[in-house]
């Protein structure tokens, strides 16, 4: 039903985006053991539908703010994949010129205003961007992505309070993957329903299935429109699953902190595969088209990794560069 209210073009675009994010993660994972990417990586496999679904509703100059699990947000907002990979390889050609690493991606030309590795750190900054839009009357919307644990930080509540008070055009997107490193939400939060936190400020807040890109797309469209019309902030809790460990490749110790049945259940709901199945079933995607999309992405990624590996490293003489503007 939900799928029918989204155009085939948009569905294909969402699929392509999610596939690109997934393939990029898998390629990073495959290359990671070589220890050439000397920076921690936080893979977002399993959570692709959230960044793709939300960003499909944003204009190029709308603002996006991100966290440590940042690759999907960067790609979905239109960031240059070459510069992302180069940043992972610590190169001067990286999006942050090798000064940031995987947790500090940025692409201001497409409205990606940076990612913070301090949990919840981007939430107030995004709120400030929304304040600037009100002061400048530029009509932009700010979106900030953060995890479930970020809602345990004070600034989450402080920011929602201020955004509500000033009716700021911002959408708070919580990607609830239930784990902060290895700590389950049940060990950390008295009330697992994060969307209910919005009630304290009487703002629209929704809990949605973050592994269903159609649901994310439609609900975030409503949220972004609401924010753009000057109705104030919206909170979206998108529930999805982190298929890999907190950081690094694979999840070799998943038995020690996850319920394996829970894990299997979420793997079965794989956001990318379920979308692919639906698209094939409805003839929106054909096998030929699928293979063509896949090849195009593979080519782009191969080029990006080649670019990154061949790029120059930062010059040690420039150690102090960029401290001040």
């Amino acid at each position, binding site marked *: 039903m939900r799928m029918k209210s989204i155009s085939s073009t948009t569905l294909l675009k969402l699929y392509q985006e999610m596939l690109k994010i997934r393939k990029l993660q898998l390629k990073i994972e495959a290359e990671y053991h070589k220890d050439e990417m000397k920076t921690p990586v936080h893979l977002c496999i399993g959570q692709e539908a959230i960044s793709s679904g939300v960003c499909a509703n944003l204009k190029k100059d709308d603002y996006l703010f991100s966290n440590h699990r940042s690759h999907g947000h960067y790609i979905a907002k239109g960031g240059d994949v070459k510069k992302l990979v180069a940043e992972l390889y610590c190169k001067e050609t990286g999006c942050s010129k090798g000064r*940031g690493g995987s947790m500090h991606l940025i692409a201001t030309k497409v409205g990606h205003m940076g990612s913070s590795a301090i949990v919840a750190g981007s939430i*107030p900054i995004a709120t400030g961007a929304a304040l600037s839009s009100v002061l400048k009357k530029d009509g932009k919307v700010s979106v900030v992505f953060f995890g479930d644990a970020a809602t345990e930080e004070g600034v989450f509540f402080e920011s929602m309070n201020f955004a509500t008070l000033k009716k700021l055009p911002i959408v708070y997107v919580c990607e609830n993957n239930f784990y902060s490193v290895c700590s389950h939400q049940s060990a950390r939060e008295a009330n697992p329903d994060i969307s209910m936190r919005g009630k304290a400020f009487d703002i629209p807040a929704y809990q949605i299935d973050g592994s269903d890109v159609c649901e994310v797309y439609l609900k975030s469209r409503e949220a972004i429109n609401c924010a753009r019309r000057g109705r104030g902030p919206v909170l979206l809790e998108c529930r999805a699953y982190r298929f890999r460990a907190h950081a690094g490749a694979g999840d070799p110790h998943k038995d020690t902190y996850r319920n394996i049945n829970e894990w299997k259940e979420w793997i079965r709901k794989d956001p990318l595969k379920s979308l692919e199945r639906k698209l094939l079933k409805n003839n929106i995607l054909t096998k030929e088209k699928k293979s063509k999309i896949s090849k195009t992405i593979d080519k782009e990624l191969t080029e990006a990794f080649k670019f990154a590996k061949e790029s120059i490293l930062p010059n040690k003489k420039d150690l102090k560069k960029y401290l001040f503007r």
Partner: protein
Amino acid sequence: MPWTKFLIETKEPGFDEHPDKIKRKLNVSESIRETLYQVLGKDERIFVMGQGVDDYTGMFGMTLNLHKKYGKKRVFDTPLSENALTGIASGAAICGMRPVYFHNRPDFLLLAMDQIVNHASKYSYIFGGELQVPLVIVAVIGRGWGSGAQHSQALHGLFMHIPGLRLVMPSTAYDAKGLLVRSIADNNPVLFIEHRWLFKHQSYVPRELYSIPFGKGLIRREGKDVTVVGISYMVIEALRAAEKLKEQGCDIEVIDLRTLKPLDVEIIINSVKKTGHLIIADTDWGIAGAASEIAAVVADQGFRYLKAPIKRITWPDIPIPSSYVLEEAFYPGADDIINTAADLMKGQS
């Protein structure tokens, strides 16, 4: 900034401990208010925020009634939420605005350490210069009247440790205006720390806007025997000490650093070259603080000019007490500078 002229001066015009009556004089809060009034009118990117900026006290007068002229959108009261509000100011700054965020006391900045230290001060560097954070944070050291351990701290030593922050500590109304203009015009986060006791001090302040560069200290009083580097209010105490020391035949040179970061090393070294003696007088704790850093820099770059050990006059390593008797015992002042300078001179003879 198109709306300021840029002044590089080695002397503050009209600065005189014994004020003449001709020139227009303002105290620090009047000077700050005038500056904000003028810049808000010149640049729409600038806005003023902070708890109580639009109340009847107007942040010790610094923001008094600015909202009536510029409206509640550009001069607004805030929730306490210091950490989020710092991030909010930074977020507006990276999107092209120039916020000036007021706090009654530096003590409250401790609630915003994450956004100041982890975010605002690092965002230019970690994004390879792709972002800039033109944010000014103002706080006023609240010494005295029993303000106690959590309402009297200075904390600039803590912030001096952090790369990516400018640290401004004016001691006159003239400097307050010129340095605030410079701070707002800067593309980086600036911590602008004032001192409540300086609010009574008046000095000549030109009507027009002017900008004083960072990292340029001033010689407030020339002398040949001992260099006294003063920070914030301690500049005034040093000038008081100078009068009495003169009677004792000791001629001290008083340096006002104006900004701690960047630090004017040259002005200190040149003075020590002349006097051979150094006292650093700070309004903060001594251990690992600004005075210690300055002492280390001089030991490193000016050791050969020193005729005696460097002396630091700072707070003792305890929280600030409330009772006025204990406050008297806690805060060093002109007498400590006098005694220390006299001891240095005795050691020399």
